[in-house]
Every structure is written in structure tokens, then in C-alpha cells.
């Protein structure tokens, strides 16, 4: 194709890249060096890395995200495994996808009702003779709801990598005398590691920043990096500090990506 013709496609897209990908990220880095009166300073970083509140918040945030991811894997892996063996697996996986098309806020809202003082869960507890629990606005409920929302996103990549495994591997391992358990742990799980890793990527990073969930379900007790960014940007208007936390979030995102990115190496090998 002619050169100017190619430029025609290039321009809008590259313009978009420059304006909405590169510029905003650059601006976040830039703002992180300014204080609330717009003076250049490193104080934001200093405050972040010396004050106990920010460090515990980061640690908590990572811990929450870790637990959410862990529960999601523990529930999703067997789920994906069973679905991949079903007859109409496409239909079943569709049923896994369907809840992801429902607005996240509505799902969170449903849990406000479910977990409330006289909600369904407490009614069940009463039915089994257990005392009524205050579940709303606790760490546990936040993790529960976040895991609920993330599970489909964990099932899908694992399911995809499971269906990619050729039957001959399973048959070979059986012919060579492996038990079902050995086939699972020595063949299937290692081969689905890429799926698990991309699942971790998809679930862990957003879990660091689910501020709407921590507000709605965690009350104001659960404070994550995302909540802090939201608060600094929209409530206290301290954009410098907000950006600094944003930069920390970006860096942790890059770390997670690096830790879970094996695809490229594999392809080259």
C-alpha cells in the first residue's frame, strides 16, 4: 500500500496512543513529584515510604489481593477441570461468562442485601441454629465479594489452557502407569500453568484497586491502594499523593506482569 495511505490509519491510532496512553501515564509520574501547593518535591515518596499508614496499607492491599486471588484459584481450578470434561462444555462455560456481563456494582449491591443483618445468609445461619453474624463491612466480606466477582475471570483462562491440552498426553501418562492424581499433578497442572498465570494477572491487579467494593462492602474499614487513590483524587484533592500511590500501583502491576509473563519466552524456545 502507498505510504500516505498507510499514514491514514497510523495517524488516528498513534494519536490515541500518545494522548490516552502515554500522556496520562507520564502525567501521573509528573504529578507524583508535586505537593498540594504545586511545588516540586520528593516529599510524597518520602511520606509514602516512611509513614507507617501507607506501608501497612500497601501490605494490607497486597494481602487482600493475594487472598482474593488464592481463593479464586482454589475454587476455579476444579471448576474449570470439571467443565472441560463435560459433554456440552461450551454451554457450561457460557454460564460461567454470563455473570460477568452483569454490572459489577449490581453484584456488589446484591451482597449488601445478602449479607445484611436479616439477609439470606443470616437467615440460613439461624436455620442451622447459628448466631446472627455481622458480616457487612468486614474484611472477610470484602474478600468474599471480590473473589465472587473475580472467579469467572479466573475460570476462563484456566479452562482455555485445559482445553488446549491434547488427549494424547493424558493417555500417554496413563499408559505409563500414572495414577489419576499423578496425571493431574505431574501433567495437567504443569501444562495449565500459563492459564493460571494469566488468571493471576487478570485477577490480582484489579483486586489491588477495587475501591468501590471496599467502600460498599468493606465499609470504610478496608482501605486498599485503590481506595487511597480515589480518596486523594476526589475527596482530599491531594493529587500529588494520589499520583504517588498510583505510581506504586503501576510499579506493582509491572512486577506482577513480569512474574507471571512466561508466554514470550516459551514462544521463542
Amino acid at each position, binding site marked *: *500500500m502507498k505510504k500516505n*495511505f498507510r499514514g491514514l*490509519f497510523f495517524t*488516528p*491510532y498513534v494519536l*490515541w*496512543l500518545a494522548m*490516552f*496512553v502515554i*500522556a496520562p501515564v507520564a*502525567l*501521573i509520574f509528573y504529578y507524583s513529584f508535586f505537593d498540594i501547593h504545586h511545588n516540586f518535591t520528593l516529599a510524597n515518596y518520602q511520606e509514602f515510604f516512611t509513614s507507617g499508614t501507607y506501608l501497612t496499607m500497601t501490605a494490607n492491599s497486597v494481602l487482600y489481593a493475594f487472598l482474593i486471588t488464592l481463593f479464586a484459584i482454589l*475454587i476455579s481450578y476444579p*471448576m474449570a477441570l*470439571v*467443565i472441560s*470434561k463435560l459433554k456440552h462444555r461450551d454451554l*457450561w462455560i*457460557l*454460564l460461567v*461468562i*454470563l455473570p*460477568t*456481563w*452483569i*454490572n*459489577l*456494582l*449490581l*453484584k*456488589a*449491591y*446484591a*451482597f*449488601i*442485601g*445478602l449479607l*445484611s443483618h436479616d439477609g439470606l445468609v443470616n437467615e440460613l445461619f439461624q436455620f442451622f441454629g447459628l448466631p446472627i453474624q455481622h458480616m457487612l463491612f468486614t474484611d472477610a466480606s470484602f474478600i468474599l465479594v471480590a473473589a*465472587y466477582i473475580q*472467579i469467572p*475471570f479466573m475460570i*476462563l483462562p484456566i*479452562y*482455555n489452557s*485445559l*482445553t488446549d491440552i491434547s488427549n494424547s498426553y*493424558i493417555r500417554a501418562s496413563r499408559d505409563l502407569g500414572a495414577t489419576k492424581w499423578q496425571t493431574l499433578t505431574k501433567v*495437567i497442572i504443569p501444562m495449565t500453568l500459563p492459564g493460571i498465570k*494469566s488468571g493471576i494477572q*487478570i485477577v490480582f*491487579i*484489579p483486586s489491588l*484497586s477495587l*475501591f468501590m467494593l471496599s467502600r*460498599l462492602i468493606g465499609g470504610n474499614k478496608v482501605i486498599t491502594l485503590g481506595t487511597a487513590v480515589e480518596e486523594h*483524587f*476526589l475527596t482530599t484533592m491531594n493529587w500529588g499523593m494520589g*499520583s504517588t500511590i*498510583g505510581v506504586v500501583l503501576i510499579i506493582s*502491576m509491572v512486577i506482577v506482569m513480569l512474574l507471571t509473563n512466561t508466554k514470550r519466552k516459551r514462544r521463542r524456545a
Partner: protein
Amino acid sequence: MEDKASRTGKIYITIVFLLLYIPIVYLILYSFSKGTTMTNFQGFSLKHYGELFADKRMLAIFLNTILIALLSSVCSTIIGTMGALAVHNAKRRHERETLLSLNSILLVSPDVIIGASFLIFFTALKLPLGFWSVLLSHIAFEIPIVLLLVLPRLDEMSPSMTNAAMDLGASPSQILSKIVLPYIQPGIIAGFFMAITYSLDDFAVTFFVTGNGFTTLSVEIYSRARQGISLEINALAGIMFIFSLILVGVYYLIETHNTGNGAKKSIVEVTDR
């Protein structure tokens, strides 16, 4: 895999499916309750739907949301398709890789970061927050997914088709409109629908860039849910559920139609976030 699912496996997935769907069913069930709380179902009534339809403000917000979704998807589909053509035609390998990794930044970034950085960006540009800032943000975060859905179609297109067209004397614009676009059309349509769902589903980014006057459904649900239970939201959930069922239906009709036409892309892969 060929192993049949065991009985325990089936029981397990039944339980997980139940857990996945109970909150949704619960939510919609109570939209038909006569009462005012999400506890103790008090008999069937459509009054919350009535309230919802009589709520002029809600109607305006609903229309805003649809308008933003449609406009942003059209724009992002056009720019995303152009981007796919640009990536596809990239001469050097590292040029393609760079473009693709830049493309995926917005797909993997946490919503808060996208929202906060766009807020800084719009403020730096002195663009007032409201309809336009929301529209631009939605276009921005929908483009990468459109590109990722269109690019595979372009890559699987045999170069001999365009070469043949060129040999037969077609101009670049003819090649584009008669050969390339028809061939990648399924990818474009899938991208368009994905963009709509991204737009309808977004809360965090919109929340950051929306300012005071303008609201979308997600933001409205959030601010109402913070005030507590109102069964009007449940009624809204019911309507949105049906709406997304229709969208899913249309999307899968197109997808299965595509796969029937020889595109081997699995349905499931497309919906990865």
C-alpha cells in the same frame, strides 16, 4: 480431555454455579417484592418497576448511558480497526511488538489508574468534566479491545488476496473497501459489541472523570447503594439483566455465525478481560 467428569465433580460445579447465580437471582427476585428492603419477600408487585419508569432523572441517566455506549463504541471501533490495520502493516517486527504492548497498557491497568490519569489529563487540557470527558475516556479504553478482536482476522487473511487485487489494478482504497473490510467484518462487529459492554460495565473510570452534572447508570447505582437498599435499584438490575441477556444473545449469534464461516477463534477466548 476425555475423562468423564466424576460424580463429586458434578456436585462441586453444581454448588459453584448455585453460588454464582444466587446473588443475581436474589437481586432480581426482590425487584418484585412489595416491601422496601431486600429481606422478607412480601408478595409479588411491579411497583418498583413503576417507580423506576416514572423516575425522569433515572430515564435521563439511562439514555445518557446508552448514548455514551453507542457513540464511544462507534468511534472506538473505527479507530481500533485503523489501529489493527496499522499494526498489521507494521514493517518491522519490533514496531509491531511495541505497538501491541502499548496497546495492552490500558487493558491491564487498574481502573483507578486509568481514571486518575485521565482526570489529570483532562484537567491539564482544561477540558470541563462531563459528557465529553466521559465519552473520550470510554473511547480511549475501548480501542485496545477492538484492536485485539480485529487483528487476528487481519493476520489470518492470506496476502495473496490483496496481491491478486493489486495485480488486477485495484486502488488501495478499493482493496480496503472491497477486500479487507468485508473479510475482517466479523472481527469489527465483535469488537463493536465488546466495546458496548465495556462501556456499559465501566464504573471506576467514569466515576473519576464524570464531574458533577453528568451521571451514568453505574455511577448512579454506586451513589444510591451507598445510601442503602432501595428496591428501585433491584428493578433497574432486572432491566439491565434482560438488556445484557439480549446483548449476549446477539453477540453469540454473530460469533457462532463467524465460526460457521471458518473463523476458528474460540468463543471463550474473546471474552477474556
